[in-house]
């Protein structure tokens, strides 16, 4: 049962992402992506990572994608009439490239000897995750918090209003 749900969710994820990358309107793309992220979060849960699933929804779909929407709407990017592009001559080599990349990746992944092994029932309780996170990986947590500080400052600096004429 869970197996079947997993595959359905996987399919939904891929379909939503496909829709996302082909939308002209960026808002539509973001919304499709959020849907895909919901499916992804459920897949995480099925793989025994409930906390990560929650974070996926809260942080990724809820903060990062919302930030994208903020910027899209702030700059008025949608509904923007993108001028007609170069046509299918430009897409074709890239599409072929993507297709071949897909095929290669799948082949490589699926023929690995470990690929046939089954993932057994696994459930990681948040407490265990917290113990691992703040136990063994405490240093990494601190460093990532620095990173967030840098990002804040950087975003603030970059987002300052331009003085008259030139940039900062």
């Amino acid at each position, binding site marked *: 049962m869970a197996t079947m749900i997993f595959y359905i969710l996987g399919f939904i994820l891929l379909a939503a992402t496909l829709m996302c990358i082909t939308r002209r309107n960026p808002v539509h793309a973001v919304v499709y992506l959020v849907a895909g992220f919901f499916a992804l979060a459920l897949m995480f849960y099925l*793989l025994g990572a409930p906390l990560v699933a929650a974070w996926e929804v809260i942080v990724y779909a809820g903060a990062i994608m919302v930030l994208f929407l903020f910027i899209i709407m702030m700059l008025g990017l949608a509904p923007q009439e993108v001028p007609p592009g170069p046509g299918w001559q430009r897409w074709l080599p890239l599409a072929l490239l993507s297709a071949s990349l897909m095929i290669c990746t799948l082949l490589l992944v699926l023929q690995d000897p470990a690929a046939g092994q089954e993932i057994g029932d696994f459930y990681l309780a948040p407490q265990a995750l917290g113990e691992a996170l703040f136990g063994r990986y405490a240093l990494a947590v601190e460093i990532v918090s620095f990173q967030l500080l840098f990002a804040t400052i950087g*975003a603030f600096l970059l987002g300052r209003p331009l003085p008259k004429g030139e940039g900062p």
Partner: protein
Amino acid sequence: MTIPFGHALAFAGALFVLGLSCVLIRRQIMMILIGVEIMLNAASLAFVAASAYWRQPDGQVFVLLLMAITAAEVAVALAMVVYLWRRKRTLVADEFNGMHG
């Protein structure tokens, strides 16, 4: 639920390639950034699947760190997008070719 490890990884791989094609094919900087997000999520999926396979928490810890980093990166990236918009009022990536040789 018994899923072959390879299938989970295959999903991750497919998602990654989809994100890569979004990066390659779309011309707007915003869509390129969204493609990057998709690729990062594919990596997260791979990590979680591996964490389940090896029955260790380390993969999931890394997914958290990944999300934090992504948040930071998105913040700065979007700030840059705003800046670029203010400079040129367009977000087509090809327009910003001042470094051409």
